[in-house]
């Protein structure tokens, strides 16, 4: 059982293959890799977990690449519920509201550009995990 703030309590929700590729096994956190889920679906999943008492470890709107530009989203909630936090619930609800105000762009992206969006999402996650992002890539 992980206590609050211990990486054992980190549940990383992500649809980013680079996160699974380069972070699996690199720490005591758990990665829930859901490639079929969209950006918004990951936000909703996090929101539902927060409503059920899981806490948020990272802000759902990391980075300045806008929600309608990148398909990738990673965020960290707690593995165990620790009690409902109204502020976290508000953060999740607001994040979804922010997502919804950006018009869908609907562009088809080349693989190399998708890799770049994965890279940024991965780097932001590493920043939160206090893991050297660059080191993780050279395997």
């Amino acid at each position, binding site marked *: 059982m992980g206590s609050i703030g211990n990486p054992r309590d980190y549940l990383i929700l992500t649809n980013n293959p680079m996160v699974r590729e380069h972070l699996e096994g690199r720490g005591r956190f758990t990665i829930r890799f859901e490639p079929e889920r969209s950006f918004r679906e990951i936000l909703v999943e996090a929101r539902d977990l927060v409503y059920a008492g899981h806490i948020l470890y990272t802000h759902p709107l990391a980075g300045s*690449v806008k929600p309608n530009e990148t398909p990738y989203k990673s965020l960290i909630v707690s593995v165990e519920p620790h009690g409902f936090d109204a502020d976290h619930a508000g953060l999740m609800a607001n994040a979804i509201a922010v997502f919804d*105000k950006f018009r869908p762009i609907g562009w088809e992206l080349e693989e190399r550009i998708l890799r770049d969006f994965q890279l940024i999402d991965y780097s932001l996650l590493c920043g939160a995990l206090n893991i050297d992002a660059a080191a993780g890539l050279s395997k």
Partner: protein
Amino acid sequence: MKLELGYIQIKDIQFSKECKVENGTLYVDPDAVKAYLYEDDDVKAWVKDFSFDIAKPGESVRITPVKDVIEPRVKVEGPGGVFPGVISKVETVGSGKTHVLRGMAVVTAGKIVGFQEGIIDMSGPGADYTPFSKLLNLVVVAEPAEGYQDHKHEYEHAVRIAGLRAATYIGELGREVTPDETAEFETYGIKEGMEKMPNLPRVAYVHMLQSQGLLHDTYVYGVDAKRSLTTILLPTETMDGAIISGNCVSACDKNTTYHHLNNPVVANLFAAHGKTLNYVCNIITNENVYLADKQRSSDWTAKLCRLLDLDGALVSQEGFGNPDTDLIMNCKKIELQGVKTVIITDEYAGQDGKSQSLADADPLADAVVTGGNANEVIVLPKMDKVIGTLDYVDVIAGGHAGSLRPDGTIEAELQVITGATNEMGFNRLSAR
């Protein structure tokens, strides 16, 4: 701490075999600059080549994708050197004398990721939205080495260093030149300041720094702001490059190194210093993704404001989305300490202006200055010359599929223009 800035007005830039500043013209040999850039091992390892170009105000020129904009400066007297902890040693700066090559900038450009953004138009409607269209720009376009795709963190670092080295090299050319104009900036110790200005309200600048990851970072004396606890900086330190940008996503509200060197909040607080307020210091605080970090940073910001017995704090943020949470946390907590705040932000109110502008809000944030709605759409005409590449315009932050039209015009949100909705209050753009 007292710093004297000596402004050398640059009125033209020309390529030449010599490197010097004479009668307001910068003569520069690109090969000499390139050699200096390649003296750095990381630059040598990751940058295949550099090309140089000059863009002047009014020309039909578009620079894209823009990474950073840096003003050449050189320390001529006093401890330390410009860009401490990065180019110069870590010795504390902000005192003595520094020369500024005013009216020009070094602009680094070139792809790092496939959705690079940052457009600077030197003429046309886009020019109105970026302060850099008014400068003589020496553009350094970087081309990545083979195999950089798996090493983009290293490549970004190399380009960042290259830009700072170029600005340092050029700045050095102003060392022996007599400035056209000088200005002095001085802040005092707590006790001395109160004795000198007993009847003036005591104010600090709470300077929020973007600190999230690749293309979202800021460095203070070379330290990644992500790793820093909230702390105090003296305003003149920023004038010597204590804070540099690793940050260009998205272009409109990211602070380039030029913004940090010419921080308008610092400049305007100094203008009021001794007259309507006592400018005590800067408090720098970060904008991490990890929630506990946000909590800690904002708690510490409020704690320092209270400890310093401030009457007021001016807070500027950097970025979109989760920094709104930091901004509101800082504002609320500072107000609850009995210190009055004014905050500077920008807005994402949707293309129609009808959406809620910020991701977070609080009634205590009752004094807001805005840099404008970044979602507003602009059509940029075709330019005769592009420095860099248009390859990513469709995919730049704020652009969309079909953004780059067949006739060469670009339809995109203000987001794509470098510095358009700056949240230090650099520009005159606003919204109501």
